[in-house]
């Protein structure tokens, strides 16, 4: 088996991408990586789609010594994945051994907007874990299924790219600048809104009522309450941090209801909403809640204002 070797033993966080072609190559390299971790007694968390988890579990000698999570569930909204890794690293903090993870946030069928959020997520991992206790994350990318446009960006988000054949490539990489560039870029234009509401603190209840009405019409059913709560938290941020008021716009996209909340505030930290807040944390907990409840969240902020889009499927 072609084992993957750690490039720099002194680094806190190692973030490698693996380009694979086909199931047997995936099994050989990712399976080998997980097996090496388990054999070394390293806590190992594997976040993949369920079919890939089954494939690994069926072929690993001691699958129960690793933890597995369904990426299509936890990573449906890419803004939610970071929290899973934070929890993992924190749960094992203070141990002598390093940790190991496998995460495949990018798969065939992701929309253009989702791919951009995945890219931002991959950049921000480097920023978030720069000073963490040692751990090694391997991100498999399916080079037969993904477009060259997507694969070309992998070197920008990972320090090292392991191709399916041939020599390793060094990533061309400056995560902080790249993360900021995406975070400050505008979101794609939106369709005409079905409903537009300007709100201030006293208008939150009216705004909630309007969102709730549209959410029910759109067939969100049981999820309407969590959607309204998410919108309310983001709108509350607008009032507290964004100049006392904001504007929300609602429209129906192909498969989801979208609510955009805009204000004149500026978010300084692109990691906002990605880390599980401690209970005493008085910070922007609202965006974390929105990330957990919604199927897809986009946050962009510049000196002239902040825009947050929340997507919820029926």
């Amino acid at each position, binding site marked *: 088996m072609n084992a993957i070797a750690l490039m720099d033993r002194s680094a806190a966080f190692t973030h490698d991408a693996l380009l694979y072609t086909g199931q047997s190559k995936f099994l050989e390299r990712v399976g080998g990586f997980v097996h090496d971790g388990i054999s070394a007694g390293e806590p190992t968390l594997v976040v993949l789609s369920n079919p890939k988890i089954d494939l690994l579990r069926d072929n690993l000698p001691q699958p129960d010594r690793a933890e597995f999570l369904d990426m299509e569930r936890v990573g449906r909204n890419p803004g939610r994945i970071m929290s899973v890794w934070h929890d993992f690293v924190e749960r094992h903090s203070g141990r002598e051994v390093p940790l190991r993870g496998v995460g495949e946030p990018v798969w065939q069928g992701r929309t253009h907007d989702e791919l951009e959020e995945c890219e931002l997520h991959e950049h921000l991992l480097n920023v978030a874990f720069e000073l963490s206790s040692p751990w090694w994350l391997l991100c498999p990318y399916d080079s037969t299924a993904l477009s060259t446009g997507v694969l070309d960006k992998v070197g920008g988000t990972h320090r090292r790219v392991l191709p399916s054949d041939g020599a390793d490539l060094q990533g061309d990489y400056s995560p902080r600048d790249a993360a900021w560039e995406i975070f400050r870029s505008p979101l794609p234009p939106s369709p005409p809104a079905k409903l537009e509401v300007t709100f201030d603190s006293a*208008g939150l*209840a009216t705004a909630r009522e309007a969102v709730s009405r549209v959410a029910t019409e759109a067939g969100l059913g049981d999820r309407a309450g969590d959607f309204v709560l998410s919108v309310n938290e983001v709108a509350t941020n607008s009032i507290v941090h964004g100049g006392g008021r904001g504007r929300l716009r609602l429209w129906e996209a192909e498969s989801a209801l979208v609510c955009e909340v805009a204000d004149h505030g500026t978010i300084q930290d692109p990691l906002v909403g990605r880390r599980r807040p401690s209970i005493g944390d008085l910070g922007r907990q609202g965006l974390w809640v929105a990330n957990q409840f919604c199927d897809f969240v986009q946050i962009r902020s510049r000196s002239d204002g902040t825009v947050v889009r929340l997507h919820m499927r029926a």
Partner: protein
Amino acid sequence: MAAGVSWAAESESRAEGLQEYEVAVTDVFDEKHARALCLYDRRLLRPELVQRAAAVHPSTIEDATGHDGPTFQIAPETPTLMRVTGQIDLSGAGEFSKQIASLVDGDDLVVLDLSAVQFIDIGALRVLVDAVRNSHVRVSRPSRPVRSLASLTGMDRILFGDAAGESE
């Protein structure tokens, strides 16, 4: 182009004509490069006329600023059992903290019944967490919105103890 529709408030027959008028206007503007804004004054028009407006327009713009905020109430059922009702958001946050603080002054255990809370945001939930941690306040019977937010944020462990989710 903008046009007010306050004439619909003048009489019942005029109110009835409003829908017909709006449908006709929509036909006139259909497929044309023009934007028409119909102005509905909530103070003059009956709520059901305003409600209906959303159905006949492709999009609705609503000004929710300067409204009266939602209300909540903390009312005693017995000397040690208080029932919280209504919606608690940013607009009521200051008043909510104040009322909770006034409850925790005494030495007796006070239980807050949360079954009639229709909406609560994180800020207000945190006020409850602090009260439970630092005083003789306990909470019980969380409504669905309370339970949903408390379990997501992990505050349920503090608010309802280990037997938390029991109201499933």
